[in-house]
């Protein structure tokens, strides 16, 4: 197939000659300005390392208390899951499910898939599921909403400040670290390179 010499802009469908920019440079579509590619140095190794770090950080961020509220000697402290349970107990099942997916399950699956993909590529192991993993991760991207959740924590704290004294737990710091890791993780993935390597691996396996 000689179509590999060409590329099309995903947002305006302009036919472009395929060009891979140098590390640190960006390629934009000349017609609509879409960011076509932005290769990173050692994207596979970097993704592999960051997804391990993210997976480790996921547990303290989810298990340690994040914010506590002290009223009349009682301290109520919250983790991600307890917010979901609170909504569930109030009968807000649909909202509870949405919060659970966007703040707990999807981030975990996203990191897990990144680890599986980059791990296989890093150790040169072909796997027929690599393609499905790439597709799932691609579709999951925008439903991981950890940074939105962080903004909600800030707003909630400002609202509660006047009500009662607040305490910040280790879970909150772990959560901020998790957000930094996942942001770097998504920004550092070089999809063109990943697909190219998957192609090579799976073709090598067939012969």
């Amino acid at each position, binding site marked *: *197939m*000689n*179509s*590999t010499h*060409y*590329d*099309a802009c*995903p*947002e*305006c*469908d*302009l*036919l472009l000659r395929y060009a891979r920019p140098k590390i640190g440079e960006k390629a934009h579509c000349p*017609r*609509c*300005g*879409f960011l076509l590619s932005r290769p990173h140095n050692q994207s596979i190794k970097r993704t592999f390392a960051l997804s391990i770090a993210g997976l480790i950080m996921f547990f303290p961020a989810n298990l340690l208390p994040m*914010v*506590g*509220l002290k*009223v*009349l000697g*009682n301290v*109520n*402290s*919250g983790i991600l899951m307890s*917010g979901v*349970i*609170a*909504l569930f107990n109030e009968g*807000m099942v*649909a*909202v*509870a499910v*949405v*919060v659970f997916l*966007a*703040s707990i399950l999807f981030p975990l699956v996203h990191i897990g898939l990144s680890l599986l993909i980059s791990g296989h590529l890093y150790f040169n192991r072909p796997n027929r599921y690599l*393609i499905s993993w*790439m*597709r799932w991760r*691609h*579709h999951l991207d*925008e439903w991981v*909403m950890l940074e*939105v*959740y962080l*903004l*909600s*924590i800030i*707003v*909630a704290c*400002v*609202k*509660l400040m*006047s*009500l009662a004294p607040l305490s910040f737990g280790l879970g909150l710091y772990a959560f901020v670290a998790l957000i930094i890791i996942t942001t770097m993780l998504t920004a550092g993935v070089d*999809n*063109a390179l990943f*697909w190219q390597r998957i192609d090579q691996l799976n073709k090598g396996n067939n012969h």
Partner: protein
Amino acid sequence: MQGFIRCDDCACLVKIVDQLSTCPRCDSHLHARHPHSLQRTTAFLFGSIFLYIPANIFPIMIFSQFGSGEPNTIAGGIIELIDGGMLPIGLVVLVASILVPSCKLIGISLLLLRVHFRWQSNARRWTVLYRIIAFVGRWSMLDIFMLSILANLVDFGSIQIIAGPAATAFAAVVILTMFAAKNFDPRLLWDNQQNL
């Protein structure tokens, strides 16, 4: 574009030969444009406009204190923040829960109208509008996450924050507008373009 289809999932460019319907690399279905893009976007848009009304009329959270409940709509919560001297945070919530959803509904409607009536105007500017809409959508979940945090923390028997009926409607609005933006194909803005 002549003779090629770009796979939506893996970005691979495929030469069209005898009705090839799946991508040779990732096996997903090939479409020159998102299938039924305008119909699907319109359907999601109408759904979210319809739900936008209860989301704003009914209380999103109820602050109950010793048995008496004080219901708060989305707008009410923002006014409370600003009245309490917390203007910057009030503005953040105003942007995320009122400006973003309503601008999104208007923006998606405009995109649909432009494609449908083939308005001849700068396609690049419209693509920028599409990108902004696609980017900001998720930030409206702010209110929903905040509700889950508050419902969890403020629960001391006699003093409680309870989620109101608008919460489900608002969450649905956010998700439906995200689906609407996802189904809209920006390449339609460039089709039927006479002058660039």
